[in-house]
């Protein structure tokens, strides 16, 4: 008989993100990043009540919050904002001013935390896969101090020895300001960049993950801690907050699911939202 898991991987990632947040910080979040939003809210509802969010949707500073949604997410951010800026002001003045902590999801990441959201494979003119683009990543990574990364589906296509394109600035010797990523969480483990020249290091392995599986899914040799600690699983309170308070619809799962399964989850969420608002 299969044992019911106490938590799912999306919940573990959210919890890891939450633990990276300090009280009083200003945090930013990009487009379609519900794992990050759920992690931030979990921090707010536990150890970081004085958190301020800068949301890409609505361009507002928010200290209030509301449960996550898909069709309703715009409404939530707009209505929670205490002050809303147009995106020109946000990009030119506010993001540089606040230098928020932000979690980015790289299309590719190299051993030094440089990353890529522009294209994978082929050439820039004829890519194998065109990605959505750099958004604000190429803007803020050259000067921000508190960049973090998350990878919902750890694999060799993401963890690469050499990037096809560097749109996110990591630990490189020519950097003028700010810092390469401080932290990375994937569905397999947690990492920092404390190796020589800012090289990625495993800090904890998620429960149930083997080192050989992790290394097989990573396109470069990983620096390893000795002994090998395991990630603390979410507490009952954290799971309760995520499941019942922050994200009852399970929007966070959209980042760990793929293809038809993701579309099916989307339909469930949309139907639940329509039921609530209609």
């Amino acid at each position, binding site marked *: 008989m299969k044992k019911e898991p106490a938590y799912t991987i999306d919940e573990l990632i959210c919890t890891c993100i939450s633990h990276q947040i300090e009280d009083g910080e200003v945090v930013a979040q990009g487009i379609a990043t519900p794992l990050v939003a759920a992690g931030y809210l979990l921090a707010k509802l536990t150890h970081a009540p004085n958190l301020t969010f800068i949301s890409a949707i609505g361009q507002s500073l928010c200290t209030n919050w509301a449960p996550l949604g898909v*069709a309703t997410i715009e409404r939530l951010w707009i209505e929670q904002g205490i002050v809303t800026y147009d995106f020109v002001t946000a990009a*030119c003045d506010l993001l540089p001013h606040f230098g928020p902590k932000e979690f980015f999801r790289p299309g590719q990441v190299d051993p030094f935390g440089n990353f890529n959201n522009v294209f994978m494979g082929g050439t820039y003119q*004829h890519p194998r896969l065109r990605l959505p683009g750099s958004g*604000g990543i190429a*803007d803020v990574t050259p000067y921000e101090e508190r960049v973090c990364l998350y990878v919902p589906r750890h694999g060799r296509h993401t963890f690469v020895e050499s990037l096809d394109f560097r749109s996110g600035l990591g630990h490189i010797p020519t950097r*003028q300001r700010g810092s390469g990523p401080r932290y990375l969480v994937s569905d397999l483990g947690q990492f920092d960049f404390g190796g020589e020249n800012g090289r990625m290091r495993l800090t904890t392995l998620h429960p149930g993950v083997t080192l050989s599986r992790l290394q097989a899914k990573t396109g470069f040799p990983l620096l390893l801690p000795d002994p090998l600690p395991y990630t603390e699983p979410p507490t009952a309170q954290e799971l309760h907050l995520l499941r019942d308070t922050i994200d009852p619809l399970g929007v966070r799962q959209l980042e760990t699911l793929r293809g038809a399964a993701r579309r099916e989850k*989307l339909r469930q969420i949309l139907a639940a939202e329509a039921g609530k608002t209609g």
Partner: protein
Amino acid sequence: MIEKVRPLTAVLPHIQNGHTLGLGGMTLYRRPAAFVRALIQQKHPPQNLTLLTFTAGFASDLLIGAGLVSTVRTCYFGLESFGLAPMFTQKASTDEITIIEESEASIANGLRASMAGIGFLPSRAWQGTDLFSVRPDVQTVIDPYSGERLTAFPAISCDVAVIHVLQADRLGNCRLGGNPTVDEALAMVADTTLITAEEIVERLDAPVDIPGQVVTAVTHLPNGAWPTSCYPRYPLDGEEILRYVEMCGNGRFDEYVKRET
């Protein structure tokens, strides 16, 4: 009073072959989707457009799928949780479209420089990244005080901007309704600014988001953002966006666009 209300048929011809067309809103929010469908469904739609939009989503993907666009300027092209933008993703690996790689800062500073009428604005963005390798036109400038090298984002111009709004009045004053994106700046820098509006009233009270002084024409298009949202009037229609993604995935883009007539 300078009356700016015009029917859709009167404003569509503003967009000509080779124009830079700016689209308001962002990703799945307050996009001028009905205008874009009408543009595509013309007998002789404009060709070789340069699409300029802060983030590109549903409406932009329609324009790409229908073959109106030869060049794309945006910092993000996708459908958020609904996945990659299918037609953009297909054509981006071909020679059919050229991408002018942008970021939030390059578009924001470019629009702001254009508003101020100067050639560039400096920024710390892009320093150390590969963006310069695909944008050899973008120069750097030295801060004369500190000696720091900064990126000199060039001013961005726009022939026609199309922006969907919650409310407009007959003078062209507009209220966006929330989620302002870069539309106030876009309206200001475009040579021609076309507004489609959920509702047209005789006269809006202060405060408005876009003053009528920068608006060329206003067209009444209720539900004009559908299936993207027009806060607070309606949220995005996720089922319809899923249908679009699935039809495009099955090679049925033309059928999808036709069905919308």
